[in-house]
């Protein structure tokens, strides 16, 4: 252990601001990168799922229409 107390650790021998600035910025940037990667992944999946749902709905609607059309012609 290089530091005697927490305040000495935070002060970093007088260079606390610079050390904590660089660690803080690094953590912030990496956290943002991780979060954006995760949310991108989720969004992509949601997007694909949504499109799938839309396709199924369209297909059902088309079938319904066809059924109705055939019923109409029978009348």
């Amino acid at each position, binding site marked *: *252990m*290089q*530091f005697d107390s927490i305040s000495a*650790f935070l002060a*970093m*021998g*007088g*260079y606390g601001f*610079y*050390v904590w*600035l*660089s*660690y803080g*910025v*690094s953590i912030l*940037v*990496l956290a*943002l*990168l*991780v979060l*954006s*990667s*995760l949310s*991108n*992944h989720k969004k*992509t*999946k949601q*997007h*694909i*799922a949504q*499109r*799938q749902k839309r396709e199924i709905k369209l297909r059902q609607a088309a079938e319904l229409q066809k059924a109705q059309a055939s019923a109409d012609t029978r009348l």
Partner: protein
Amino acid sequence: MMWKWLHPYANPKTSYHFAGKILPWCTRLAVIFLTIGVTWALLFAPADYQQGDTFRIFYLHVPAAMLSMGIYLGMAIAALSSLVWQLKLADASAAAMAPIGAAFTFIALVTGAAWGKPMWGTWWIWDARLTSELILLFLYLGVIALHNAFEDKSLAGKAAGILALVGVINLPIIKYSVEWWNTLHQGATVSKLGQPSMSADMFWPFLVCFIGFACFVTALICLRFRTEVLNRNSMRPWVRELVANEGKTHAV
């Protein structure tokens, strides 16, 4: 030989699942190594006799700078293999790497500035290494911007790949020219400070940090690679099945 071994990974489905398998392991390793490394660097590593505790920035700055260049090289290799052997997946991995590389370049620049302020007295000097790192950031941003400008992701991958290759040919020229320009305009006095010979009790935490960051990068590449693969194969049956299955488990 190599082709036989590589062949299954040319299949998007296999490589998607493969990336999914290494992802948790890399994440675990990254968490372990980074926790140990950062604690070691902040608490137990000795302060530099000349630079004092600012030397603790070194454990972030140098791995980030090394990785920023390494990732660019990896991206260029991926781009080359996608252009030469028409590997679509190489494209996806190149696209996955660009934002990660840009982030690490940014970190290297910021930590470099924060280290430079107490040591050199200014946030920024037009030092050769700083300048070429800044230009590297521009190159990354260009690749990302080009990638985002295309609607069709496989076209985007090809275009960004060409740019990455042009950049990697230019990078040594830029680096050389900047170094030369720098020595011309100011004596290489301060840049010596950045690279002291390291003692063992500084080298080990550095190595642990570096391995941690490397695992972190691998994990992120896997994650982003999976996203890219899904994006490119969104109409394939296996993707539809996968998404539908996940939707079910979420609903339940």
